[in-house]
């Protein structure tokens, strides 16, 4: 139940975020689908016992893959799907916890979450990089 709610929530939230970013009307729901898949992979990885960093990595990979696929299918720039879709993995919770434990005078946990948040940001970068590279290879092959 919680799982389904999480995926649907991501779908709705990312569609809404697409509106904030002024995404063209016809692609708003596509963005939502990308985000929903990202949320699904994230929650699934967490349920399978992965930690937050690994779950973020897998979900960012899925999101980047879907964005590139959609960009090929609908002949639109990748940015349109990627920017909104990546939102579920962005470490908002980590940023909150850093501050929370700072205020609570628990500097140990605060620095733990600081490292974790930086790791998540790095891992998102890695996932986007991997997918960008893979899709670049494919284009060059088909062109030659």
């Amino acid at each position, binding site marked *: 139940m919680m799982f389904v709610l999480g995926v649907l929530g991501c779908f709705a939230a990312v569609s*809404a975020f697409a509106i904030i970013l002024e995404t063209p009307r016809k692609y708003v729901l596509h963005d939502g689908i990308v985000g929903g898949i990202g949320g699904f992979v994230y929650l699934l990885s967490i349920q399978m016992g992965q930690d937050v960093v690994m779950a973020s990595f897998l979900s960012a990979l899925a999101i980047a893959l879907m964005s590139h696929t959609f960009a090929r299918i609908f002949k639109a720039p990748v940015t349109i799907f990627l920017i909104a879709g990546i939102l579920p993995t962005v470490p908002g919770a980590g940023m909150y916890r850093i501050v929370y434990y700072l205020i609570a005078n628990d500097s140990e946990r605060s620095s733990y979450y600081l490292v974790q948040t930086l790791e998540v940001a790095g891992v998102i970068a890695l996932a986007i990089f991997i997918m960008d590279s893979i899709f670049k290879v494919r284009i060059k092959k088909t062109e030659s």
Partner: protein
Amino acid sequence: MIDYKLVMNTAILAGELMLCSGAETYRVEDTMNHILNTTHAQTVEVSVMMTGIVATLGNPDMEPITATKRVQERGTNLNSIMEVNEISRRYCAGDLPLEEAYERLQKIGPKQYRVWLFNLAVIMVSSGFAPLFGGGLIEMAAAIVTGGVLALVMTAGKKLQISGFIQTLLSSFAVAVSAILLKQVLPMVDDNIITMSSIMPLVPGVAITNAVRDTLLGDYISGAARILEAFLIAAAVALGVGTGMALMGVFFPGGGLA
């Protein structure tokens, strides 16, 4: 005879629109290069950085033209990027005459969604992410309230033309305060979860994504600038939430700290 000046103006306008709308640096350079190359001039140079554009067009039959454009305000408008992309693609393919391409570029509007839809979207983002952070239906409903406060502050900030950093700071401050106040009224909601999901519209997801793509494509200046932007936004969000929690801790012992 090609109207070099008009081609240059078209390229600069296209580049400026894309840069203002948050396109990646390589995409802006690529588009401008394509447009300028339709003149088959000998020298076509475009250099784009996150804060401005420099372009040169030179051919033996003309005086070389160099244009500079400083870009002050940047936001995210994917629709503009799409439209500029489409117009430039059609112009380069020869489907669109130069004058018409230029006119169409000038007509690209800043916004396609109305203010109420934008505000509704902010509320939906706030509410929709609550389950991802472990919240249930109660938290989703509570996040609608904090999301509403966030939308209100964001709209007010836009009306008063508050700068980006302060705007983010004030917004996240309002979220933290309203979440803790809500907790006082309804003790069964988890204020941590609603704060986390309500700051999601503010987190620097766009900046992180663009920073990665720019850096990995070799646009180091733009990439570094965007990484700095991401850190600044993150710091503003953290500062706002922290100030809000500290302030509420004064009024309600234990305040934001469960």
